[in-house]
């Protein structure tokens, strides 16, 4: 197995308009788990479909190790790529049993008899569906169908596994269970996995690397921890984790990590200074006896705590948590422990 490399990949559809994918370069290390994160229409699914071979790039190239899979001139057909994919709609064949669905890639490869049934059994065991081998996909629940689709990927030891919003059609309870299954699947198979999603929590929970896309462009690639702590630009900052983006007179500071001392200083000698966007996570906002005054504009009880929205003097909105009950309209004083200049 080898590294998957996207080299200045672009895709423009014949209908015109802005390219769906624009100059995307990316390396996915062998055995990595990359989440492609972005709002709908950002081009992430097109990237995935180009990796699978369903779309041909109009510029740039896709390589697996030193083998060129596709460029603007030629491409390897999907059937020769040794990849597997979990589709949003599951894409199970309704006329085949669960075992036949899972075993189809083996059948195509000419694997027969005992070896095939052993492999099917193993794959179904890995997703805990051994008992369902003879059922039809129509008799299964959404989560079970998704696990069949996953078992179908598992069975041939593909180089790359692609997942196209696989949890979008499942309810929240099932999602958590499936996230666990995906993680297990990744550890067990060691395959390179690419996971398309618009849900940042999903991306952060699963992936070893997160790539954020918007309007066809790649904005940032980093580990979940890195992208959470040091997002680049407003779009990534707004997309990853909870947080409020506030304009603060911080344009002149060199350091991007700002603590309360710095923030306070900036505020006091600010008049006329250039503003910059800073990202403030709710857990870094502390309600204290002193600090900046803020008005509570909304309170949401979440069980273990209250989630607040606070309006600063200039009506900019912050998010914060509180252990104590507060009321809408209360005035509080806050300290911002840490902020990140975007």
């Amino acid at each position, binding site marked *: 197995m080898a590294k998957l490399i996207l080299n200045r990949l672009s895709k423009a559809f014949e209908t015109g308009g802005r390219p769906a994918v624009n100059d995307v370069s990316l390396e996915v290390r062998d055995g990595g788990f990359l989440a492609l994160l972005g709002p709908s229409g950002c081009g992430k699914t097109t990237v995935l479909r180009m990796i699978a*071979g369903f779309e041909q790039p109009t510029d740039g190239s896709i390589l697996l190790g030193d083998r060129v899979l596709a460029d603007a001139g030629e*491409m390897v057909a*999907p059937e020769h790529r040794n990849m597997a994919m979990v589709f949003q709609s599951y894409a199970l064949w*309704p*006329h085949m049993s669960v075992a036949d669905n899972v075993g*189809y890639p083996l059948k195509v490869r000419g694997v027969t008899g005992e070896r095939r049934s052993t492999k099917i059994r193993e794959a179904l065991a890995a997703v805990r569906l051994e008992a369902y081998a003879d059922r039809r996909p129509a008799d299964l629940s959404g989560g079970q169908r998704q696990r069949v689709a996953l078992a179908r990927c598992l069975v041939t030891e593909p180089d790359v596994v692609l997942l196209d919003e696989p949890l979008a059609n499942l309810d929240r309870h099932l999602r958590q269970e499936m996230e666990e299954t995906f993680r297990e699947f990744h550890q067990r198979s060691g395959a390179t996995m690419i996971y398309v999603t618009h849900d940042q929590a999903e991306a952060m929970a699963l992936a070893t690397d997160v790539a954020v896309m918007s309007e066809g462009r790649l904005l940032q690639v980093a580990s979940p921890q890195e992208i959470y702590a040091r997002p680049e630009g407003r779009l990534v900052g707004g997309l990853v984790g909870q947080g409020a983006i506030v304009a603060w007179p911080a344009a002149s500071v060199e350091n991007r990590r700002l603590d309360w001392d710095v923030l306070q200083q900036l505020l006091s000698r600010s008049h006329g200074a250039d503003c910059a966007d800073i990202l403030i996570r709710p857990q870094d906002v502390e309600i204290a006896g002193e600090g900046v005054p803020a008005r509570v504009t909304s309170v949401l009880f979440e069980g273990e705590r209250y989630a607040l929205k606070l309006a600063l003097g200039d009506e900019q909105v912050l998010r914060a948590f509180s252990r104590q009950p507060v009321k809408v309209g209360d005035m509080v004083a806050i300290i911002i422990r840490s902020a990140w200049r975007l």
Partner: protein
Amino acid sequence: MFRSQNRGNSQPRWLFSFVVVVIFFLSVLPLGRLAATGFSSLFNGGARALLSDPVVWQAVYDTLTTSILGMIAAVILGGGFALLLTLFDVRGKTALGFLFMLPTMIPPQVTALSWIGMTGPSSALLKAIGMAPPLGSPQPLYSIGGIALLYGVQNAPLVFLSLRAGLLALPRDGVEAAGLSGASSWQVLKDIILPLSLPGFVAGAAIAFVSCVGNFGIPAILGIPASIYTLPTLIYSKFAAFGTNTFADVSLLSGLIAILSVIGLTVEERVLRGRDYRVIGLSGQVAMFRLGNWRLIGELVLWLAIFITLVMPLTALIASSLAPAYGVPLTPTTATLDAYREVLFKQSITRTAFTNSVSLSLATALGLLVVTVLTGYYLVRSKSRLAPVLSALAEIPYALPGIVLAVALILVFAAPIPIIGISIYGTIWIILVAYFSSFFAVSLKPVVSAFRQLDPSLEEAARLAGAGFGRRLVDIVVPLVAPAAGASVILVFLIACNELTVSAILWSAGTQTLGVAIYNLDDSGSFNLAAALSVLVVIMVIAMMLVLELMAKRLPKGVVPWRS
């Protein structure tokens, strides 16, 4: 392992060439040949003799009058039926709709025979109930009016379908809104529903007109005895009296039919193009009015229409088939099954006809399926701009009257086929080719609708599993479109088995079809044998329609032609 497949297309390269070749041979070549012969005889002066022949202009005149009158009858009958059945709360809608659609699937010559059996001095039915007109009085259907009336009955279902599709899509909320704003039911009908359903009326009328212009069975049986010739029967008689100019003449005559048809089809297409508004609102919920005390009367009217247009003629047909000889009164003692015994076991001609029709229809239905699965796959999956053009070309042979195509194929195959040097003219193979060409669109439509409904990811998953085109086709695609493919086979079989127009021109000794056999039996005066054979055909039609009706739930919308 490079394959230069463009843009991740799922089709192998040969598929495009295959589709182009198929459509060239089934549509472009015959129609192009017909046009070429027509134009050349037009410019060579050979046309002058034909076009100065008053018989031709009389035939054009008769074609137009019968077709326009027939269209009016079809609009009144089919339109009235559709309005009553769709908009009002009458009971038994499914049964009424099915029965009303039957005449369109019954071969026209059978319709004509059954109506003859119902009227006139020799009617076995009228004699049995003692109401026959005196001997020697004329058969009233052997006239322009008779032909037009039967055109109306035969084609009313086309208007019914076209109008019903529009009415079913009428948004109920729009009707309710009009009601809330104070309009009475009559005002709603007049101001909202009729204007919105006008395109359905016009399109149905246009398609009925085209069908009348190309009809052969009805004017052949009703018109020829009274020396009334329409263009299709004139072509038939030209072939019967074969001469040096026959090919040039018939190509011009079928050109005339094609022009009349294209006018009708253009009107239909224009009208339906402006029908986009029908998706607004909650469609599927049919606007419905309560008839209250009038309901029983409405239902009576509908059942009476079914009785007159379907039950009575078919009863007459059965009566004629049971009568010992034409004109002999039918009583319980004279009734006999001799005619059935004769057509089923004794007459070698009818048995040959059965064998021919069944094997031709089976070969057409199954052979076309292979072609249409590949063609349909290409037409749905291809992003090429050529796909819609190819799709339109595939439709033309079925849209044009069968007689035009038959003439075109004679022109193509009159000479031996180049290179291999074999002539198929006069053999059963030319009929098979004509059926392939004629019913290509019939076979294609259900398959295309099924492909449209197929989630592309099902095939993409198979590609990633490593399956190449042929493998995917066999393992994934064909099993998933199987119900529609089955419907396509039954539909083609049904239509091909009942067909008369194409084979009437193309048959020769030993290659007669069921349609030809019925016509020839009637022509030679064996009316009871013709009736018996017709009864058998009607039973077959009804059986196959019922099978399709039972399958309908599992099929994509629009596959079964009489359901909307």
